[in-house]
């Protein structure tokens, strides 16, 4: 089974040289720490950065330089700053090659719910709806079950949607799956996790090929 770092490491294997990538808050943010050696990947932050660098050293933080999670960050050499409309022009216009974000629920049709729980305080969708509606390549990073053990991979989402038919790939603590033809297709098992465990943690339709390799980290 993977922890959050493991999920981030596995997602980092999906990166390709020259890609522009938007990472959501939480597990996705960790992906930036595991860019393969020698690969050049630029991170976009939707508040207006391309070429976001690591967190600053103490004393170097600048209130005027934050990421979309409102954390102090730095710029890489060759970074560019822009306004919010230009930022979402990049996102909506499909100039970002990969979007990684978290989810509360994902359906076997690729629907995603990650912004609102009825009856609870609603903070807002931020840029998530723009991101999922626009990106051709979305990876959802999530725990496959909630704290009570209920699957978050469902036939249909029960929560208000963030976007429809948009998620193509999921990396959870248990598995890597692809979504197509109305089903979760199992691609890889997390280390030490059996197909049966994955099946129990998947409420939606799961397609298991003959052989399911264990992922390599």
């Amino acid at each position, binding site marked *: 089974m993977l922890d959050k770092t493991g999920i981030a490491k596995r997602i980092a294997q999906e990166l390709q040289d020259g890609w522009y990538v938007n990472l959501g808050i939480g597990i996705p943010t960790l992906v930036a720490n595991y860019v393969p050696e020698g690969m050049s990947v630029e991170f976009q*932050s*939707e*508040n*207006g*950065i391309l070429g976001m660098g*690591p*967190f*600053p*050293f*103490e004393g170097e*933080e*600048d*209130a*005027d*330089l*934050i*990421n*979309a*999670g*409102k*954390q*102090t*960050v730095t*710029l890489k050499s060759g970074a560019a*700053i*822009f*306004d*919010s*409309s230009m*930022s*979402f022009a990049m*996102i*909506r216009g499909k100039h970002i090659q990969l979007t990684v974000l978290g989810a509360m629920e994902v359906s076997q049709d690729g*629907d995603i719910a990650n912004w609102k729980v009825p009856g609870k*305080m*609603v*903070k*807002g*969708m*931020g*840029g*998530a*709806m*723009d991101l999922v*509606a*626009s990106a051709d390549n979305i990876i959802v990073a999530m725990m496959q079950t909630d704290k009570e053990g209920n699957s978050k991979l469902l036939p249909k989402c029960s929560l*208000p*949607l*963030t*976007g*429809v*038919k948009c998620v193509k790939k999921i990396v959870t603590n248990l598995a890597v799956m692809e979504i197509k033809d109305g089903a979760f297709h199992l691609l890889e098992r997390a280390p030490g996790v059996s197909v049966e465990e994955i099946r129990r943690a998947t409420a939606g339709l799961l397609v298991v090929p003959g052989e399911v390799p264990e992922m390599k980290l």
Partner: protein
Amino acid sequence: MNKVYPNAEEAIKGIVDGMTLMVGGFGLCGIPENSITALVRSGIKKLTCISNNAGVDDFGLGLLLQNRQIKKMISSYVGENEEFERQMLSGELEVDLIPQGSLAERCRAGGAGIPAFYTPAGYGTEIAEGKEVKVFDGKPHILESAMKADFAIVKAWKGDTLGNLVFKATARNFNEVMAMAGKITIAEVEELVEPGQLDPNYIHVPGIFVQRIFQGTHYEKRIEQKTLRPKPQ
């Protein structure tokens, strides 16, 4: 034609109860601190505020919320604010949540004379309810309308007396499009300079969009999430 005002108190004159304001900033980054303070002191009420976020309890738009001056917030994300939550859950505060990209584009459209545009963002969600849908290239999109404000209040790094503005780093965010969409736009700047001191090639907001400008004072520039990495030994 003088656009220069001595301070925030003078610059916000004309804002009255019930108006719609756009307020620049992302989180607490690039917010018009001086103007917000002046609005708090003014006691103007029943404001509709269009702003990506709603500040924190004791800073930014949170100060106006504390003071019950806001009737409605139009934002994309409103976390980090307990007073906001209380007013929203009790029904005192109306809240309209909008996808962040649509919010930015709707402000730009308001400034650019584009009354409406199609976007894929929000299709199939509750955001799309009641909105026209049209399929382009096989993909459904929803029609979003332009937004304007009685006053837009933005914060820039430097500005000249003609209203030309430049921003520093990510303090730019929504300030640029909101400056375009105000019927009257008030810009507060850290440094007010004479015409000719800003390079014409690198103006972020041309002065035509700015009706009032003043040099702010005592910027706190609070950091919401100070995140650091360890210094190498």
